[in-house]
């Protein structure tokens, strides 16, 4: 289990605690994540503007990994879907690959089409596996009720992701939560989008989308939200106070990245997992768990 570690744009700046926990957990479970200086933006933010440029950006990143002989592991859903889609298109479409390589050649790169891409959560589910994770649990999280938000681009479009997840009834994150002894909570409109992609187009709509989800998760009695994307994280964690201020509602729902939850169960300390950096305070949650 060795991957080129694709951090993306958002994580190193705004979700360092997510990154920190992912690295700590990877080390503990024997997943080797190799840092790569030459990675840049995956291409996702440019897709709406110019699909060709976005594809070239994705292909450039893939060629960087290919030169190192590594597959790619991401910690962001947006990066996961953009790079996975590009890797699939370029693997099967020789003509497209030739066209892309014509341009890549001008910056001194080529892509042969051999790299595969996985989100870190998918690596944990498929490569490590819930059984092995379960066997490594030192602190069972029994009594904790966790609502998982999958985020759209972890599993959709499902054709791109080889249907490893059910787009209507996703289950991998809930299985990964249950493996830690915690209760995986069901809630209304579980597969709804966080709204993050349109936050800078219309923040009223985007925040209302996030708020609706907070309502449903609160109503289901969850103690925390579990997610795997820094953009979803910014909607529910960084913007939870904004939503509360604008609407007068109170949610006080801690938002954790999956490897933060997993790390606690594996016996890592809250500080090692950056749980002091989450915007919504995690202290009550941690004391409930005996930390």
């Amino acid at each position, binding site marked *: 289990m060795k991957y080129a570690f694709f951090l993306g744009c*958002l994580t190193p*700046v705004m979700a360092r605690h997510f990154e920190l926990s992912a690295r700590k957990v990877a080390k503990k479970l024997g997943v080797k994540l190799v840092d790569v200086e030459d990675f840049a933006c995956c291409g996702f933010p440019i897709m709406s503007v110019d*699909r060709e*440029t976005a594809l070239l950006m994705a292909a450039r990143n893939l060629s960087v990994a290919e030169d190192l002989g590594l597959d790619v592991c991401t910690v962001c859903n947006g990066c996961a879907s953009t790079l996975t889609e590009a890797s699939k298109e370029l693997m099967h479409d020789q003509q497209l690959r030739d066209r892309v390589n014509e341009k890549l050649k001008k*910056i001194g790169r080529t892509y042969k089409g051999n790299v595969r891409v996985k989100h870190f959560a998918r690596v944990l589910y498929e490569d490590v596996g819930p059984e092995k994770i379960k066997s490594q649990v030192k602190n069972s999280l029994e009594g904790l009720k966790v609502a998982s938000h999958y985020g*759209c681009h972890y599993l959709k479009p499902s054709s791109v992701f080889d249907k490893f997840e059910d787009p209507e009834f996703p289950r991998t994150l809930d299985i990964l939560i249950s493996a830690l002894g915690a209760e995986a909570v069901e809630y209304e409109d579980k597969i709804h*989008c966080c709204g993050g992609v349109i936050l800078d*187009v219309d923040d009223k709509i985007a925040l209302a989308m996030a708020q609706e989800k907070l309502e449903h998760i609160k109503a289901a009695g969850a103690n925390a939200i579990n997610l795997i994307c820094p953009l979803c994280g910014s909607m529910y964690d960084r913007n939870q106070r904004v939503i509360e201020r604008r609407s007068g509602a109170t949610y006080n729902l801690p938002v954790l990245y999956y490897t933060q939850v997993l790390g606690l169960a594996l016996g890592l300390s809250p500080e090692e997992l950056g749980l002091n950096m989450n915007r919504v305070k995690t202290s009550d949650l941690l004391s409930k768990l005996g930390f």
Partner: protein
Amino acid sequence: MITKLDPKFKDEVSKLPGGQNIKRCFQCGTCNVGCPVREIEEKYNPRKIIRMTVLGMRERVLSSNFIWLCSACYTCQERCPQDVRIPEVMNTLKNLAVKEGYIHSSFAKRVELVGTHGKLFPISQFDNTKREELGLPQIPLENKEVKELFKLTGLNKLSSAKGEE
């Protein structure tokens, strides 16, 4: 108001990557029903956008604000009985809108940030100091190859918009 129609608009869209299946739409409205954006704001109406496109309302569609509201969640794409691939059609329409000079200001900003720094959220020295304190590796402040790619596709010349806010 019925503006000038361009009956070839649907052909134009269907020839572009992402737009191939637009003519298959039979207006069932499955996309609207599951759309989380529409649940909040009714002015976002994917079924209507598809219909307007098929009817040839080129200018109205490309200059509109609503094509930029798709959150690309792919719920409609998973459910569409005709495999129209609505988010991809929206993407194609946005790409065309950009070519016509109607880029949404937030996207013009994205182009500038990614084109300059190689990243949507540029790394500052402050970020790298914070990273060092946490034992995280340093991140390069820019990426020259992305800049070069922008030159190759002409995206570096894209400045701000006419019309949209």
